[in-house]
């Protein structure tokens, strides 16, 4: 296929092929969707032991300079100025309408250095946004020479601590610099599966050696994007471009928790980010529609794009992510519904191939998160 010629490859491409991965185009990269184990077993392995994910397609950026935190606060509704050294926060780039341009992680490395991880599909746009909006206040450096691995699952801490004992002491959302496979890595205790685990930024030329080192551990299996999606869906985590995008505000996206208290109306640095007035109005007056979790009362998967209707057959929303939850043992979904139908337990129907399938508004995460908090 000619279009594959334009796809990028991560530093682990050859390893994926060697491991027998099915490679698919994703966000401009050739990425492993699954290995020979298959999506179901990869998902279950991650929840039972540890999974290694290549997420090198994501964008890694450093913001450098004394004003970096204050500058970044003009683009996100997050407390960055008071973010302690060694801690990271989930953040959102908003636009002037309060829509979400991307979601990201921001870590404070200390010494005026912030480390930011953004979505692959948005990274060019995000970096341009950072350069044009705050490039005059801090240095914006894309780390194109680093790969990103995620080690996720209940055995992740045991495995990684064999190679770097210091990581055992990190708690959820804390980060540090440690030597792994003979090279300095940035390690945060975080991830996208709902499990305990780490994300590891490693120099690109050492990525394969580190991946092989971790895959040699008996608990670790390589996991593809297919299981990454079912894991994050069970964990109730949003997929940018599907569950949130420029047409959804953080409040419609049920992401009020991600807006730091200091940046909310009445906070010490309230507003001051794009679309703050819209978001403040949504907080004060409520929203017309909201993102909710949906449990499916049937065996049939309900997928992205399915219309949601009430008992009278009126369309009241749409599914934005859906599939089968291997740990839940049932289909699950999330989507947007008119706020009158957003209460937990509300019975609704999703239209699948023209037939109504019973669903129920449910709390997320669907599977308990197991982050290591202390």
């Amino acid at each position: 296929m000619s279009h594959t010629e334009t796809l990028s490859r991560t530093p682990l491409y050859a390893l994926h092929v060697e491991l027998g991965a099915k490679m698919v185009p994703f966000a401009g990269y050739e990425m492993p969707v699954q290995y020979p184990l298959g999506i179901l077993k990869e998902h279950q392995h991650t929840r039972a032991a540890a999974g290694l994910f290549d997420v090198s397609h994501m964008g890694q950026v450093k913001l450098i300079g004394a004003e970096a935190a204050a500058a970044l606060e003009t683009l996100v509704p997050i407390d960055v100025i008071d973010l302690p050294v060694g801690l990271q926060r989930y953040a959102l780039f908003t636009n002037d309408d309060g829509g979400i341009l991307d979601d990201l992680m921001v870590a404070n490395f200390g010494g005026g250095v912030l480390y930011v991880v953004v979505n692959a599909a948005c990274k060019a746009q995000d970096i341009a946004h950072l350069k044009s909006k705050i490039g005059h206040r801090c240095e914006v450096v894309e780390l194109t020479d680093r790969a990103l691995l995620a080690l996720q699952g209940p055995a992740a801490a045991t495995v990684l601590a064999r190679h770097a004992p210091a990581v055992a002491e990190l708690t959820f959302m804390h980060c540090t610099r440690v030597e792994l496979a003979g090279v300095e890595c940035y390690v945060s205790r975080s991830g996208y599966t709902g499990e305990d685990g780490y994300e590891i930024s490693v120099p690109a030329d050492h990525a394969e050696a580190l991946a092989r080192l971790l895959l040699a551990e008996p608990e670790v299996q390589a996991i593809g994007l297919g299981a990454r999606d079912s894991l994050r869906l069970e964990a109730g985590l949003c997929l940018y471009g599907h569950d949130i995008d420029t047409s959804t505000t953080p409040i419609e996206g049920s992401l009020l928790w991600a807006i730091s208290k200091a940046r909310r109306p009445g906070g010490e640095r309230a507003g001051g980010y794009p679309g703050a007035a819209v978001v403040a109005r949504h907080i004060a007056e409520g929203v017309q529609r909201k993102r909710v979790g949906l449990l499916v009362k049937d065996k049939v998967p309900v997928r992205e794009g399915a219309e949601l209707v009430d008992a009278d057959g009126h369309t009241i929303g749409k599914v934005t992510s859906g599939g089968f939850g291997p740990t839940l043992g049932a289909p699950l979904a999330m989507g947007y519904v008119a706020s009158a139908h957003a209460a937990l337990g509300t019975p609704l129907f999703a239209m699948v191939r023209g037939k109504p399938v019973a669903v129920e508004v449910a709390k997320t995460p669907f599977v308990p998160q197991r982050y290591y908090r202390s």
Partner: protein
Amino acid sequence: MSDIKYTESHEWLRLEADGCATVGVTDYAQNLLGDLVYVALPREGDRFAQGEEAATIESVKAAGEIKIPVDGTVVSVNVALADEPSLVNEAAESAGWFFRMRIDNPEQLAGLMDAAGYHAYIGA
């Protein structure tokens, strides 16, 4: 001589001694689909024209369909698949069969591929 025929949409059809045929999806297709999580079977007595969707399948990745290889009527279905769709992944061309059918139009069988033809078709 094998009495198994194949379609371009990756169904197999096995002629049985009683004149009926058993239909399923090929091992090649199940491998492309990935782990199946849902199967919607037809009902006994359902009648379909060649190429019509007789069953729906969903894998962890996507939805798919089983088209009836020739005109006919469903005489029984593999009820085990409803509870255990993974049978299709484990044994697509044996225990993972979908339904048995009475063939209305045997002339259509000549238009299906034999094993060698199918293997060439999928590039195996």
